[in-house]
């Protein structure tokens, strides 16, 4: 039996009209921006399934843009996000595509940068404002953004996990879950923690040998 808290039932406080098509879309946008990083000049939203069919009526487009601008699901500026993106000189493109076997409310968010390669994140809004990220630049994974999360990519070798966990332990951070998958010699790790992560941890982890990518994502309010 799933547990519910009082504020799962009376909440979230959100901008309407739909927890999955609006609130979840804001969270997808915001978490994707945190994964991809700042400095993009254009964002393309490739919508799949129900997102592609009904995004206009639910304001899913405004919600996704609000997310990549860093807004939370209860921000009353969401309705104006097209204008705010323009003020910030971010070009916005929407398209529809069949992304294959995916949840009906799925979006691929493609970030474009002047000084580095394109970066994409695929995620789904799975109901009640909950989301799941399933793909980052072709790496399949699963993260829901409900807990502070460290994302890592590294050339696999012995001892990496213990080096990471000792850095976390030194800073009194407790690991809640850790999942590692491997494609050829490149390993992807999703590590959820009980406490929020500060940037010094990311700096320390990035000094470990053969780390290709490290990012920390603190949870987004629901």
């Amino acid at each position: 039996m799933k547990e519910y808290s009082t504020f799962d039932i009376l909440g979230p406080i959100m901008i309407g009209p739909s927890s999955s098509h609006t609130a979840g879309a804001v969270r997808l946008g915001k978490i994707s921006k945190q994964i991809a990083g700042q400095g993009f000049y254009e964002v393309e939203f490739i919508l799949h399934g129900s997102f592609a069919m009904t995004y206009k009526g639910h304001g899913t487009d405004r919600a996704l843009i609000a997310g990549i601008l860093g807004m939370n699901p209860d921000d009353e500026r969401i309705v104006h996000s097209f204008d705010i993106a323009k003020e910030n000189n971010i070009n916005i493109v929407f398209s529809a595509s069949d992304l294959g076997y995916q949840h009906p409310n799925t979006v691929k968010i493609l970030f474009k940068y002047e000084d580095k390669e394109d970066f994409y994140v695929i995620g789904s809004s799975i109901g009640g404002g909950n989301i799941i990220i399933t793909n980052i630049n072709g790496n399949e994974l699963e993260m829901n953004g409900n807990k502070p999360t460290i994302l890592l990519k590294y050339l696999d070798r012995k001892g990496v996990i213990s080096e990471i966990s000792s850095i976390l332990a030194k800073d009194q951070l407790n690991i809640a879950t850790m999942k590692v998958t491997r494609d050829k010699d490149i390993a992807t790790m999703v590590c959820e923690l009980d406490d929020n992560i500060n940037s010094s941890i990311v700096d320390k982890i990035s000094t470990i040998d053969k780390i290709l990518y490290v990012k920390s994502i603190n949870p987004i309010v629901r």
Partner: protein
Amino acid sequence: MFNRGTELLELCNEENKKISDIVIEKEMKATGMTREELIKIMGETLNVMKTSATEALDKEVKSLSGLTGGNSKKVQDYTKKGKTLSGVFINSAMAKAFSTSEVNASMGKIVAAPTAGASGILPSAMLSAQEKLELSDDDLIKGLFTAAGVGEIIAKNATISGAEGGCQAECGAAAAMAAAAIVEMAGGSPKSSLDAAGFALSNIMGLVCDPIAGLVEYPCALRNASGVVNALISADMALAHVQSIVPFDEVVEAMYEVGKALPETLRETGLGGLAGTETGKMCSKKIFG
């Protein structure tokens, strides 16, 4: 801890407490937060509810799609004229429910209670009860914990999702939560609160989810307006000790069974019911092309 209505009532009876007390204590244990912290968050929740339930009363709020809007103001203006069939109280409650639904459809701020689609019912019920029973905001905050406790039981043992159980699961749950809260705030017993919740679910059992164009607008706003009336009369029935034959937990089970038996076209797909009518399809075509 409680998973079912019977367990909640036992806890109330053992300790001679209200449902809201038991829910607050459970939440303190589960989250580690203090009573004051929980009350503060619920106070913020109530404030959002108050704003959404009154914002569209005297200004026309249009939905993002352009399909609906302005009904809150229409009912409010009609109420002011004084000559109505169901009276000022019921009409004002409907206007407030419309208000939150319209704010939601226009990308305004609401509290999902328990969902965005059913978000008009609880705020209107709380404000209507506040006026009628002369309650303080603190009373309403406690009432919202009672509502949440009832909602938790429904979510755990059935569903609060229209895609899974139809409108009865969303507007039905919201009305049940509101009815239980009103009974407690009016001085009724915990058992009467659950009777009221059971009545509210029984009154609309089988209600389908058939939104035109799949949007949270029509008939959703109508069902929020009728949903708050359902909550108010269910509370009155329980306070009058109308005979409740099937206990709340079994009503919840029945709602779930009925929900699962509904065809997919009547579970938030925008295909059957009103969405599937000639006009419903035409509206959809106009919005999405």
